[in-house]
């Protein structure tokens, strides 16, 4: 039946977008052991920068996809050097609170700069419109999101398993002292990883911009979704982020479609069940970085 095919594609579309965002949160937790509450705000910033580059500066979407995340990553370096450096040695609760403060600051700055209203970004012409697939009509852009999600998945896998820099990140995450003793500047790795996490969030933001209207509350919604993803998949686990994102995508896709009466409840029920029975998530921490 076309309904299931459509719901499945929709789940994948949501799931892979969530993966792009949540995997950044997870990498940051895996290496830095902080939970970045401001991750959603960085996602939002990516979307707004893309809006500015496309609608104000008149750049093509592709240029924005390239530039906006770099801008957010640079901001992340500043955040790391100015604020986060104080709390790396403290417990996780402090990092939650400080990044919550950063979230408030970014949210309000976005409101001041871009206003409270909604903004809209057009998808590039190449990706507007829809195609028929699995017996239903699917937005070309959704397919693009799925494709980029899979591309990033492959890219991340390659980065962590096939490149030296990825292995250095893993080594620093696994054993910071040992990495230090092997000439690795872990302080630099920490900054780099935080910036990389922010970059991923911003890529998610740029990808989301043509699908969703931009408003200053968009980061708050996505951060809770990301929490659900990483908790279900396993904090700090790279494959866990994928699994969690797909599960949440399915919950949204099928829950909204077949159980609309309780669709808000389902993600949290899923999250609670995982925490109760497998507190460290389905894939657990430390399997691979």
């Amino acid at each position, binding site marked *: 039946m076309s309904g299931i095919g459509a719901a499945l594609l929709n789940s994948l579309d949501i799931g892979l977008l969530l993966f792009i965002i949540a995997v950044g949160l997870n990498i940051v937790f895996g290496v830095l052991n902080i939970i970045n509450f401001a991750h959603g705000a960085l996602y939002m910033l990516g979307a707004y920068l893309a809006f500015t580059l496309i609608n104000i500066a008149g750049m093509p979407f592709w240029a924005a996809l390239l530039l906006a995340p770099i801008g957010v990553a640079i901001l992340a370096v500043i955040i790391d050097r100015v604020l986060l450096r104080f709390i790396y040695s403290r417990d996780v609760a402090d990092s939650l609170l400080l990044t919550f403060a950063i979230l408030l600051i970014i949210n309000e700055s976005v409101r001041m700069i871009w206003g409270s209203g909604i903004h809209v970004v057009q998808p590039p012409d190449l990706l507007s419109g829809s195609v028929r697939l699995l017996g239903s009509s699917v937005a070309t852009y959704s397919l693009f999101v799925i494709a980029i999600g899979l591309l990033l998945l492959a890219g991340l896998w390659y980065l962590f398993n096939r490149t030296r820099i990825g292995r250095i990140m893993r*080594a620093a995450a696994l054993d910071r002292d040992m990495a230090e003793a*092997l000439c690795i500047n872990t302080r630099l790795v920490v900054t780099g990883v935080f910036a990389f996490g922010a970059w991923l969030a911003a890529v998610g933001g740029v990808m989301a911009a043509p699908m969703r209207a931009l408003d200053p509350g968009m980061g708050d919604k996505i951060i809770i979704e990301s929490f659900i993803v990483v908790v279900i998949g396993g904090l700090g686990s790279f494959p866990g982020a994928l699994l969690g994102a797909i599960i949440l995508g399915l919950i949204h896709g099928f829950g909204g479609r077949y159980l609309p009466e309780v669709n808000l409840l389902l993600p949290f029920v899923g999250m609670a069940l995982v925490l109760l029975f497998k507190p460290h998530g389905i894939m657990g921490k430390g399997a691979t970085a």
Partner: protein
Amino acid sequence: MILDVRNIQTFYGESQALHGVTLQLEAGETVCILGRNGAGKSTTLKSIMGLTPPRSGEVIYDGKPVQGWPAHRIARAGIGYVPEDRRIFPGLTVRDNLDVAAYQRKGSTARWTVDGILKKYEMLGERAGQDGATLSGGQQQMLAVARSLMIQPRLLLLDEPNEGLAPVIVQQIGELIDDLSQTTTILFTDQSVRFALKHAQRAYILEKGQVVHEASSDELRTDQATQDRFLSVA
């Protein structure tokens, strides 16, 4: 003198582990630090390495005071370190464990390369693609030593290289130390007097965070009283 450690005091929080350790190494020497567990042997190596920076005292390496430097800077200056529990990165293959550490100082040529090591140490070469964490204890120790070579060290710190290993492996580790000592200065710790005296030229004995005895291997070998007093149960 390649290493000159002067009266270092190191704390874990408020617990004092080193109460003023002083020791020297000439380039080319192989020296052992002996002592019962809890005596401060590991802490001495970690303090030299910058992993537990000493609160006072000096660590002079190659004429430069390095205490207070971040560990990676000390490593880059040419001190290699193999920790007590090996600390192989799990999930990374043998080759990747070596690759992560690959470092080349400016102006020097790399004596040790990943491929060179895998060729020289067959036991590692055969397992290049295997997850480092799945190796046996002895193999992990080999890998840990090999990994420390990747930073092209001029001074190698080995913390209890024999701990928990079967006798036949201990012998191999001894051979490895002998081999490396041809080209590199080595400072290692051990609990076994026999092993230490066989492979080191000199030894320091630590007790309660202080150097209580210093002697050449030949002197110590015949000095039963000192052995019993500081190292055994007496």
